[in-house]
Every structure is written in structure tokens, then in C-alpha cells.
């Protein structure tokens, strides 16, 4: 689609100058020239030069600093750098899902301005393209033109992360808590063994440098958990699912357990300490079902805006009532 050339229109000031020129010409033509030529000619020169200047000016480009992702309730300052050959008033278009203020700025012949956005709800949002009103240097003409965008900025709002309520926490706890009382045997360390299973005392006693690994009676390799999230397609359910998955994953991370997450938006393996990638996925995912091989260890299903967590054949409702702990998780 070829961009249509936006119309150059006179401003109020331009109309006033035109009226002065016409009035001066008529008075001069009917009542004697006097010095009216020195009014008419400069006025026409100004109008012509201004129209040409604006007509020839390129559309402005607006480049924004990409705001850091964050959690609902947080604020970010965005710096927009405007490149324009003529004076320009920028009206930034922020996604209505963001709380934004002072989005209009007059920047002159290029320049920068800042505005604040507030994160309200999980999701991916866009800033721009901006609507720009360009005028000529004398402000006689104007045209409205969308800024030529290279890549609009996309702030991300992560899902909320809550402390798990007691039921769910206990359940998750029993799931990850190794039953180290039922010691089975010691064996030699092989690659891929978890460091936490190394039996340091026994290893120290061995004459060679090999490590010994303890094996326990119950499930041993609980250092990775698969979490699958599914949700109805409404936004509330997707939000509930994302928040639940994020909270559960954060809880597993507390125990040093890597979480492999699969949600309708994709899948991601998040070892403890690197949660951003997972949060990005959870920020953007929608509702839907996912294909899984067999029964996942943790299964989150959200419907009608509430999520339930199934784990070890037990089914617990997720209450988003605990303490919010988003910042702490990311930090």
C-alpha cells in the first residue's frame, strides 16, 4: 500500500497571513498603493516558502527507548527521540492497556521528550507509531502524518507472582522434598548427577578423587519439574493460568528445581536464577490447550478466571491471595 501524501493545510496563523495579504492587496488596488506592496509581497513569500518547506519535509521518525519489562503497578519512563526537519508536535500512541500520561509534546525541529507509562496488566503492549503534526518554521501550514517507525517499542508486563497458599505449598513441598531418610546405596558419580546428591563425607574418605553419590529409596532426580499450563481462551483465565504457573515455578526455584514449562504460547526451561525468559513467555501467552506426552508432573488448568493445580493426582485451587513477590523473583 503506497503511503498517501498527507495534505498540507493552513493553520489559523496561515489563514490570518493570507487574509492580511488579500486585504492589503484589495485596499492597495482600490485606495492607492501606499506601502502595501511591502506587506503583500513578504506575506506571499512567507506563505509560498512555508508551504514548500513543509511539502518537501520528510515525515518525522520517532525512536523510543524500550522500557524494561516489569510487573503490574510498576511505572516506566520512556524517552522518545524525534527526528524532524520542521517543527513537529508528536502525539504518542500508547496501547490503551497501559496507563500513560503526557503523551503529546512539541519538540520543534527534532528533539526528545519523555513520558511515563504505568503497567496495569499482564501482556505485551506496543508504543507507537506516533501521530505527528508538522508545521513549517513560521507555523503557517500544518500536516498530520504518522511517524515513520522502524520498530515500535513493546513493553512487556509479566504475570503476577504470589506466595503459594499453605495447601499448595505443602503439596509442592512434598513433591520436591527428597525423602532422604530412606537411604538406598552409594554409587560412583556420573555426569548429570545432581550436585546436591553428592555424599560429601563418603567421598572425602575415598582414596581416589571420585565423588560418591547417594541414592535414596524414593524418587531421586527431582531437579527438574514439568509444568504444563492450559486455560480457556478468555483473558482472565489466561492471566490466572500465567500467574499460577509463574508462582509455582518461582516456588520450585526456591528449592533449586529447574522448571520446564509448556503453555499455549510456547515452552521454556527455566533453571533457578534465570526466570526472565520464562516470564516473557508467560507475559505473552494466551489461552488454549497444549499437546503433552503423558501426564505432566504439574498441570495448571484455568477456567472462568480461576486456576487449579493438579499434582501427584491431587487437585488444588490456586488462590491469588498470597503476598506478591514479583520483584524478589526477578531480582
Amino acid at each position: 500500500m503506497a503511503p498517501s501524501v498527507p495534505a498540507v493545510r493552513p493553520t489559523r496563523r496561515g489563514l490570518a497571513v493570507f487574509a492580511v495579504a488579500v486585504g492589503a492587496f484589495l485596499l492597495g488596488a482600490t485606495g492607492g498603493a501606499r506601502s502595501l506592496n511591502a506587506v503583500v509581497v513578504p506575506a506571499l513569500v512567507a506563505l509560498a516558502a512555508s508551504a514548500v518547506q513543509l511539502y518537501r519535509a520528510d515525515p518525522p521518525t520517532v525512536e523510543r527507548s524500550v522500557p524494561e519489562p516489569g510487573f503490574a503497578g510498576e511505572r516506566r519512563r520512556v524517552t522518545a527521540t524525534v527526528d524532524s526537519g520542521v517543527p513537529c508536535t508528536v502525539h504518542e500512541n500508547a496501547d490503551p492497556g497501559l496507563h500513560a500520561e503526557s503523551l503529546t509534546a512539541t519538540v520543534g525541529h527534532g528533539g526528545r521528550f519523555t513520558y511515563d507509562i504505568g503497567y496495569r496488566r499482564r501482556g505485551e503492549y506496543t508504543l507507537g507509531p506516533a501521530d505527528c503534526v508538522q508545521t513549517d518554521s513560521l507555523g503557517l501550514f500544518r500536516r498530520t502524518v504518522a511517524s515513520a517507525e522502524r520498530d515500535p517499542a513493546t513493553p512487556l508486563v509479566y504475570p503476577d507472582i504470589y506466595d503459594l497458599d499453605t495447601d499448595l505449598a505443602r503439596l509442592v513441598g512434598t513433591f520436591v522434598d527428597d525423602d532422604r531418610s530412606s537411604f538406598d546405596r552409594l554409587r560412583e558419580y556420573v555426569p548429570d548427577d545432581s550436585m546436591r546428591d553428592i555424599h560429601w563425607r563418603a567421598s572425602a574418605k575415598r582414596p581416589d578423587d571420585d565423588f560418591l553419590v547417594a541414592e535414596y529409596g524414593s524418587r531421586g532426580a527431582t531437579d527438574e519439574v514439568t509444568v504444563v499450563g492450559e486455560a480457556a481462551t478468555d483473558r482472565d483465565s489466561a492471566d490466572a493460568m500465567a500467574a499460577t504457573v509463574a508462582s509455582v515455578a518461582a516456588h520450585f526455584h526456591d528449592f533449586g528445581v529447574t522448571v520446564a514449562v509448556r503453555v499455549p504460547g510456547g515452552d521454556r526451561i527455566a533453571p533457578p536464577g534465570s526466570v526472565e525468559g520464562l516470564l516473557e513467555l508467560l507475559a505473552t501467552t494466551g489461552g488454549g490447550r497444549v499437546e503433552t506426552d503423558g501426564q505432566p508432573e504439574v498441570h495448571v488448568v484455568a477456567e472462568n478466571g480461576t486456576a487449579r493445580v493438579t499434582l501427584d493426582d491431587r487437585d488444588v485451587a490456586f488462590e491469588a491471595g498470597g503476598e506478591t513477590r514479583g520483584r524478589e523473583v526477578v531480582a
Partner: protein
Amino acid sequence: MSTAPTAVREAVDDALPAVTDRVSVSRLVALAGVVVTLWAFLSVLHEILVVTGEPEQLYYVIAGAGLAGTVLARVIRPRTALGLGAAAVVGGTYLYVQSLPGGVQFLAVAAPMLTDAWELLAGLSVLRIVNADVWALTAAPGPVFLAWYLGLRRHYAAASAVAGGALGVLVLTGDATTTATLVGVVGVTVAVAFGDCDRRNEPLRNADALVVLLATMVVLTLFVGIVPGAADSLISTEGIGTEETTMESSLVYAGDEVSVTGPVELSPEVRYTVEADRGTYWRAGTYDRYTGGGWVRSGGLRSYQGPLQSPPGDSRTLEQEYTAETEIATLPAANKPVSVSGVPVPVQVTDAGGFQPASPLQAGESYRATSEVPTANSRQLQAAGTDYPEGIETRYTELPDSTPARVAERTDRLTANADNPYDTARVIEQWLENSREYSLDVERPRGDIADSFLFEMEAGYCTHYATTMVTMLRTQDIPARFVVGYTPGQQVTDDEWVVRGYNSHAWVEVYFPEHGWVTFDPTPSTPRESAELETLEDARTDDADGVDTNESRQSPVDPATPTTPNGTLGDGPNGSETTPGGGGTDSGDGGLSIPEIPLPTPQQVGVTLLVLAGILAAGKRTGLNRRLYRAVWLRRAPTGDPEDVVSGAYHRVVYLRELAGREKAPGETPREFLADADDRAKRVGALYERATYGPGIDREGAAEATQLLAELLDERSRLPHRLEKRDTKSESDSI
């Protein structure tokens, strides 16, 4: 009202740090634009006040209004300020109306005032209204206050609109010259453009484009006339054209204002025929206000209701019947007309007692005029004394403030022996007749006409003579006025005269108590008449239309103009008594006469500077300046220490390479950049490396670099460059 002083004090306290704080350049420039526009407006008012005599008061008014704007900008809101500005205008109008003679009631004159206001906007010069000085003073404060207030409040566009609108009124009244108007327009443009910058908190941006725009505006205004008739008026005020004007158009058809112009031509066309008992000067108009550059008729017109007053002294009645031969827009009548009849259009009477048709008379139309010609003889006039009526004395002895003092000094010397106004007038008349050549082909004088004619010009025509004589008389406090009309013309029968365009003339009337206005003519008549005859004969040879009536072709052209038209004065001056003789001519000039170098006028200087700035700015925008600079730089040999020379040579070599299309990347070393270059360029690069990063360079190395650069330049172009080629001898000398 106790809060007012505290508010003012707070405002001053607020204002002081604001001034000392750093103000943005855009703001300063925008405010300067507002000031320039106001200056253009005030300069016109100042000009009016200079003509009427007392410009000093204007300075106080401006200072007061500016101060009020500065202080109130901190205190009151724009709406209040608008109210104050409007109040200033209304108050000014009230003061003006109060100053009018007759003590009219303010409200009673509302309707006529609206008419007057309309006439002013239709081109009635402010100089023509009564009490023009009061008008100018009362018109000043409102716009100054409001524009300055708005400018300080950052409403630059509104400020420009106020100042520009005020100037616009003076443009409409015809008082603002093209120069003043252009200056105002430039001011408005600057204020608006940089005001916008300031409001956006921008630094000075795009200034070069604006300079180009301003230069274009000015140049196009000077050379393009869009408004009909603009080109003529412009070129004549600028004095750069060679537009021919006729004596007649510059005098008799001048309407309310006579501006003294450059060379004039004479038109041999017949204007009208006069039937009268005697031939005399047919007066068409009188002018009372001298502007230094021309004449203005002040006061309004009233419709003719019946006979006018006769002159106070003895007079003889002269009946005249005029028949228009072409369209004429005047109603000539001999001094002093008392009644007129048979005019096919409504007749108006000027303040000074002359007749004017409301619209032009067509060819073939005629009218009758009755005049009472004063008959006082010289003895009576000598004894007339100086007991002038108040109104006459103030109005007809007024001179512009700008009149140089040497005019009065010279007149004092010339007339030292004259002990009454009549003798004074005679001496001046005689002296002017004798000491200046008559010529139609003179440049328009610069500055005060009378001063130029007295001290700089060798020759002139009737306008210069008459203007100078009136000015000289007024320096002696003798009421005098500038009069235009026609000389008697060609007498075709005993009581009939044919008047042609070239008979148009300017002369002088002097007021004598108990006798009224008496005619004097300082222009030498013989050269004038021969110039007129020559014109007529040329026209007859060319068989031009309209130069003759049936009678005039047959009768001889007899230029029998009396030197002094007033018949009763035929006995002439007593001659020897006061005529200073030839010695007076040189006495004031102080000896040496240096050939005059024509100095450019301020307008020419301003336009030239602006155009130059425009060209520079355009060059900057297109990058031409930089290329030109580089071209010169390339051809100038680097000088200084050996290090500087080598570095200079290296940078020129780099520039040469870049001209050839090889761009130097920011991080590229000299060696990389010159890797595939000419060996000599490589050598310069190596020398540069040694000078900059190595052990340094000696004079020999520098000379080598210079030599290599010269060779490279030689190969590249044939344009001359200033690199001296050193031969071995000079090189060994330098070591």
C-alpha cells in the same frame, strides 16, 4: 489599594533575578523582533512629530509604556492587559478629541470620528489631520504597552500582531514608508519564528533558513510590485529608478501631499483656457506643513456653501472663466478666490480657503471663479508689521525639528539688513533667483530639501526654489506657504489664456497682517519659460495631439509672465537696499568644495547586508560555503612548525583522496587509508606518521611534504594554488 505597592515591589523582586538568569537566545531574538516592529511603528510616529515640531515627548511616552509593560507582565493576566491596552487607545482618543479646537464633547463627535477614522484608513495621511502631534502621541502608548507585555509573557505571535497591526494602520494612512513597512514585516517574521522556538524550548534552530527567507522577502518586495501602482512609488522613494515624472503630476495633481522628486518632464498638452481681464498665476492648491522632504496640506475639506471671506486689505475683483480642455482634477483660481459657480461637480473648500472638485472635470466643462486680488503696494506691505493672527502664525511658521540650523544662520546673514518681513521676503526671492540655476534634470535631494538646495545643489526647479524660500522665511518667523498652480500661460487674445501642462508651477505666498496672502516667486522666469517653449516647439514639430487650441496655434507664444505676478507690485523691490550681491553665494560654504561621493542610504546598506546574509545562509544550507572554503584551503600552503606543515599537507592529501571518492573511515590509520594510493601520497602519510607518532620531523621533511603536495595538486587541476615550489637552492638556504 494598599496591596498595589507591595504587588509592584514583588514584581520588581521577581523580575530582577529573571533578568540576571540566563535567558534563551531564541527569546532574546524573538523579543528583538517585537522591538524592531515597534520601532518601525514608532519611527513613523516620530517622523510625524518631527514634522510638527516636538518629538521629545514621544520618548517619555514610549519609556512609560515600556516600563508599564515590563512591570505588569509580572502582575496581571493577559485579559486584564488587553483591557488596559484597549483603555489606553480609548483614553488616547479621548485626549486627542479634547485637544481639538472648539472643545467638542467626546460623545457628540463619535459619528464624525468614525468617518475620519475611515478616511485615515483609506489613505488620509495623519499629517493632514488637525493636531497631528497630539494624535501621534496618544497613539503610541497602547500598542507599545500591549506588544511588550505580550512579548514578555511569551505570546510572541500576539505581540507581533499588535505591533504589526499598529504599523498596519500607519501603512493604510500612507505615512509608513516602504522601508519602515519592510522593517516591521521583518520584525514580525523574526518574532514569530524565534518566538515559536522559545515556546518549544528549542535553541536557535533553522536560523539560516529564516535569513534566506527574510532576504527573499526584502529583495522581492523591492523588485516586484504586486499591488497596482506599487512599483512606481517604491522606486521613487528608493531613488534607484529613472521613472520620469512630469512637473504637473508632482505638483498640481499631487493631491494632499507634494513630495519633491528627481528629474521631471514638461507636458505641452493644453489643460484649459482662461478668460479673464488680466493674466496672473492660477492657483490650484496651498500647502502648510513642511516635512523636510515635501509638503502636506493639513486640515479637512468642507463643502462649499457660499462666498468665502475677502482678504483683509484693499483688493481688486478678478473674474475668471475656466474651460477644461482635458480631464482636470483641480479648480484653479487666482489668489484669493472668494466664490466659484457653474462647477458641474460638488465643490469642497480646503482649510486654507482653496477650491477642490469632488471629482474631476471633463474636457469642455467650465466654471467661473471670482477672486479678490490684494492690491497693497510695497510701501504698505513694508509697514504691515508682524502682528500676525495666532492661528496663522503657529500654522505657517512651523518647521520640522530636523531642519538644520545652518538654514536659519544663512537666512539671518542674508537678511541682516532687512528690517521688515516684506524686505526679508524680497531679499530671499531675489537671492534665490540670482544664485541658483534653473534645471529640470536634477537628482532628488537627500535629506532636507531646503538645506540641500541651499548648501549642496547648484540647480533646481520651481519646487526647490519655493520650498527653500518658504523654509527660509519660516526661520525668520514670517508666515509663508507653498503654493502650486499654473503660470498665466499663452495669451491668445486680449482676455484669453491657454494653459498647458508645462505651465504648472510652484511659488510662495507670504502673509501680511491687514493684507492677507501675497504672492512671491523665487524661480527665475526666463530659463523656465525657454524650457517650456522648447517643449512646445518639439511637440509641435512632432505633430503631437492636444498641444494647441484653435487660437493658440496662430498667436505668437508670448511668455509675458511678470516676474512678480502681483500686478500692483510691478514697481519691484527697491533693489540696492538689501540685495546682498554675488558675494553672499559663497559666504556660507566655508571654502573648499570636495567632490561629492554619493553615500549609500541606510536603506541601501540594510538591504545589501540582508542580501549578503541571505546568500551566506543559503550557501551554508547547500554546503557551498564549506566546499568553497575547502577549495581555497586546499590551495593555501600549510605554514608553521614542521609538524604543522606536515600535518597540513597530510590533511590536504586526505581531502584530495576523499574528493576522488575514497572516504576515510573514522578508525582508519593513515597507512591503511593510503595503502593503495599514489607513492607520493604514501610518502606524505609516512612523514605524517613520523611527525605525529614517531620521533618528529625536521624542516627538510616538511619541505618534502609541501613539495609532494604541490605535485599532487598540480596533477589534479590546473587551478592556481599557492604552494611555493622550492628549488634546491632555497631549500639549502633554509637549512
